[in-house]
């Protein structure tokens, strides 16, 4: 075995042991997911040729979403392989949610989803890897935005980026008016990921790559993706630990 092969083997073994989700199955899920934006771009370009008008903004937003999914997947892999390279720091959850909303705005617009920010309350900073946390929330948000129109139910589609305090810590998540976002559905999906092309069938028609990438990134940061409630909304999010020391300063 050459040095390179040995190194690759070492990293693959570490990848598998550090996070089983970051495996070939996740890569397959991402590949399946990418067919959607690429199909959208190809068909919109074709429709533009036929009818004479191309919706460049939609094409740009679709391409950006696909690129972000790839970037987030790559970040998850790097976080898992070299966790020592990614230091945690005091992070404002409100600021992360605000930036997440900014990144999701154009996608939400083309899917007819209204984004809302619910960051009332002073929770102070949490200890987290900012880029990783934001990547997970963006990935999760994009997946939910694409799924919401097909879920039906509420006439006005809205996704709320919210934070609140729970007895376990500070929760940051994305919430919608659908009761399909449950821990049971999420766990079922994780089990089915290696066997099904649509493991989260109760709440998305896609491979669910955005949700599994978020799951993988959070796991790599020793966090968990889980279902939670915010007021009357259902959603997915993660629990973060406040930095009590900084709050005293």
């Amino acid at each position, binding site marked *: 075995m050459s040095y390179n092969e040995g190194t690759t083997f070492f990293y693959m073994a570490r990848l598998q042991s550090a996070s089983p989700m970051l495996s070939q199955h996740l890569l397959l899920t991402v590949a*399946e997911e990418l*067919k*959607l934006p*690429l*199909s*959208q771009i*190809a*068909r*919109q370009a*074709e*429709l533009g040729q*036929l*009818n004479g008008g191309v919706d460049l903004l*939609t094409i740009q937003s*679709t391409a950006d979403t696909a690129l972000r999914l790839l970037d987030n997947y790559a970040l998850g892999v790097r976080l898992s392989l070299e966790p020592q390279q990614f230091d945690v720091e005091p992070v404002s959850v409100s600021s992360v949610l605000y930036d997440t909303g900014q990144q999701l705005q154009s996608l939400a617009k*083309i*899917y*007819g989803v209204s984004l809302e920010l619910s960051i009332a309350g002073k929770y102070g900073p949490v200890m987290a890897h900012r880029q990783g946390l934001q990547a997970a929330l963006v990935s999760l948000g994009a997946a939910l935005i*694409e*799924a919401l*129109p*097909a*879920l*039906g139910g509420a006439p006005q589609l809205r996704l709320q980026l919210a934070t609140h305090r729970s007895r376990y810590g500070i929760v940051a998540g994305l919430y919608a008016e659908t009761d399909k976002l449950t821990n049971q559905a999420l766990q079922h999906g994780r089990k089915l990921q290696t066997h099904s*092309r*649509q493991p989260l*069938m*109760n*709440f*998305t*028609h*896609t491979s669910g790559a955005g949700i599994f990438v978020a799951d993988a990134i959070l796991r790599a940061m020793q966090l968990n993706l889980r279902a939670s409630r915010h007021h009357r909304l259902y959603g997915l999010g993660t629990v973060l630990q406040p930095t009590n020391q900084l709050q005293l300063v």
Partner: protein
Amino acid sequence: MAQILLIEPDRVLAETYYRLFVGDGHSVVVCAGAQAAIMAADQIKPDVVVMELQLIEHSGIEFLYEFRSYMDWRAVPIILQTQVQPGEFSANWELLRSELGVSQFLYKPHTTLHQLQRAVREALPQPAGLETS
């Protein structure tokens, strides 16, 4: 022109196909899921159904069994246009064709709008007195 029932869960693709079919002079009703599609079919009496198999909650296969269980809809042509690769259906193609009456199977990522237009044209009954060569 024809009445098309389009079952497409992705809003962006649905909008694209809608504009294509309307541009061809068809009347189109778009549904994102199986349940809504059954209710829509009852109202519009479609001439052809163009559908994805990967839907939320109820799969496209469940829709097909339900749809075909009604006498009125047994002869309605169905075009599957799906993200599911054809290889995954090779074993079940006969079932889809003979039992569920699927007239065409199109792999969505490789199906151009022109091919979809042609599939719809071929699926629709030819007007009386019109000879096709």
